[in-house]
């Protein structure tokens, strides 16, 4: 912004300087022209009235305005003053074209005892010299006044430019801020937000409108995706459940009749797994699209983690794994208890599953002034760097884990839950093993 103001001031300065020098030059030319006319008049009088007529005219002129700025002097061939309002021939160098610049000294001038003057020497036919000039004091005063006016107008213009620039910048910043704020809200999942427009049709308005159209389109597509997944749920879950229940009935009958049941039980288990997969998929979709932040409450993170750990402890013990827990106390987080519990359960589930027997698992909550961090780390096989971005995708499974049970949705759910809570979720190398880091946003219980 300062660049523009500086540029503006420099241009204004150049413009005013041009005006000033042009004016000064014009005034000097005017003075010279007046002097030429006066000389022409006096010469005319000399031609018609001789030296007596000229002297008379000079005396008349002096009498008219004894204190005026006009200077006039008639001198003989030795440059001795004869008549005029200068008491002697000025002591000055003469330019080639007959112009003299000299200095006047007079006690009557007051404080500034010296006035600059400019005159033209003219040689009359009889050997007399005529000097006609101007006291430049008044002219210089006018020039100074013009300079002062120009400088003060420059100052005013600069201040106005600064104020205008600030106002314009502020309005620009405000509009960019509005776009930024809306974008943030949208990135936080509130797709219904739109960038405000002021209907002036300016560039910003057009940008905002284009962005809004884009958002409309995205929202429509998302709505489509949601509808598709809802339809999958509605259209496939229900018949699947019915199928499962029919199998159940068959199962009961074969128990009664003492027939083969193993095969049917297997089928029921598989139907259950499919249902679970659909349920998990729908749950992730709901978390991602519904953004149910209104059901958040303040919970003690350590207590929440302890609950999940308690649920999984027997699994850890069955594999003879070592579980180290470090839970910072009094760490309150604003979360959906159920969803966060499920996310942590999935992480712990994975840790137990992918860590060999007698391996180590660590859960740690640390809390500093700026950060609440939850770490779930294990000494298992880990996730290669190249795969880390992909494991959050639905149904994505590592080649090495395809044989183990699971539907490839566990980490997708963790990711969805983390996004919902504005948790920064990272996968790191635990050398060996996987370290899942969740950085919670610092929130103040009193402000929300």
């Amino acid at each position: 912004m300062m660049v523009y103001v500086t540029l503006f001031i420099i241009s204004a300065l150049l413009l005013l300087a041009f005006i000033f020098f042009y004016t000064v030059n014009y005034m000097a030319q005017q003075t010279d022209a007046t002097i030429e006319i006066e000389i022409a008049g006096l010469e005319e009088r000399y031609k018609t009235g001789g030296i007596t007529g000229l002297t008379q005219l000079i005396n008349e002129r002096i009498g008219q305005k004894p204190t005026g700025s006009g200077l006039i002097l008639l001198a003989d061939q030795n440059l001795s003053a004869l008549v005029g309002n200068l008491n002697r021939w000025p002591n000055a160098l003469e330019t080639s074209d007959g112009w003299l610049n000299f200095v006047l000294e007079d006690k009557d001038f007051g404080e500034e005892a010296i006035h600059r003057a400019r005159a033209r020497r003219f040689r009359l036919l009889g050997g007399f010299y005529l000097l006609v000039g101007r006291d430049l004091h008044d002219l210089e005063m006018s020039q100074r006044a013009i300079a002062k006016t120009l400088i003060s107008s420059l100052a005013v213009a600069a201040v106005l430019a600064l104020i205008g620039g600030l106002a314009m910048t502020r309005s620009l910043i405000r509009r960019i801020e509005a776009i930024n704020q809306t974008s943030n809200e949208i990135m936080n999942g509130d797709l219904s937000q739109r960038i405000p427009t002021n209907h002036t049709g300016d560039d910003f308005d057009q940008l905002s409108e284009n962005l809004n159209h884009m958002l409309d389109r995205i929202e429509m597509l998302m709505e489509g995706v949601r509808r598709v997944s809802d339809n999958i749920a509605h259209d496939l879950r229900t018949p699947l459940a019915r199928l499962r229940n029919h199998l159940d009935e068959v199962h009961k009958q074969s128990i009664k009749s003492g027939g083969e049941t193993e095969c049917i039980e297997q089928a029921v288990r598989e139907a259950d797994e499919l249902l679970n997969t659909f349920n998990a998929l729908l749950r992730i979709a709901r978390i991602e699209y519904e953004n149910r932040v209104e059901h958040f409450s303040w919970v003690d993170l350590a207590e929440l983690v302890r609950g999940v750990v308690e649920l999984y402890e027997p699994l850890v013990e069955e594999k003879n794994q070592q579980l180290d827990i470090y839970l910072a106390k009094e760490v309150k987080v604003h979360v959906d208890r159920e969803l966060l519990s499920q996310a942590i359960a999935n992480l712990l589930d994975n840790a137990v599953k992918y860590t060999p027997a007698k391996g180590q698992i660590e859960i740690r909550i640390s809390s500093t002034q700026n950060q609440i961090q939850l770490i779930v780390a294990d000494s298992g096989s880990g996730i290669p760097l190249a795969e880390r971005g992909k494991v959050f995708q639905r149904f994505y499974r590592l080649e090495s884990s395809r044989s183990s049970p699971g539907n490839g949705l566990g980490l997708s759910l963790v990711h969805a839950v983390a996004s919902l809570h504005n948790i920064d979720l990272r996968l790191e190398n635990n050398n060996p093993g996987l370290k899942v880091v969740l950085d919670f946003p610092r929130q103040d219980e009193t402000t929300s």
Partner: protein
Amino acid sequence: MRILIIEDDSQTASYLCKGLNESGHSVDHSADGQDGLFMAMENDYDAIVVDRMLPKLDGLSVIKALRAANKRTPVLILSALGEVDDRVQGLRAGSDDYLVKPFAFSELEARLDALNRRLDTDSTETLLQVGDLQIDLLSREVRRHGRVLDLQPRELRLLEYLMRHAGQVVTRTMLLENVWDYHFDPQTNVIDVHISRLRGKIDKDFEKPLLHTIRGSGYCLRATN
């Protein structure tokens, strides 16, 4: 049991009626909320299964009206809405249990049994007994055949829930909801592991097992004769 089903989807309704009839229950059906409320007020049912979204009067309003009229009949909500706050809404309205569609019939049956039993058992009881297994809820002491068993707090709560529902089938979901207060499906069946650990403590050294696995449904704690 005498059961009322208020459900507008005819397919679900006929399936429920058929299944419950086969299990030996007597079933009435209503296809809208108004009619259903009327039937619930007029008769003494052992349990009511109500859909949330119904024509004329929605499920939650039916329950509220029932409770306002001081009808204590146990109510189970069947709903396609399964998030935690949907459940909370249902429970606040006065329902006793909440089952999300689609559901396994065995799950519904187990829950109805549990609801019906809830009326019979006295929750202020401090001594629970199944066969020769006893819990003293005041001293938190568990004994079997006179021998004191060492149980962890969570195992104790699990056992307490099983004992309060002794003789009934208890599903894994019911355990997860009531003992752990979670409403999601864990990826690995952790409940089975908890049960097997509990079994290791209460059944291992004794001749007759009390904790039985019901294939395809869940578990049942009962003294066999």
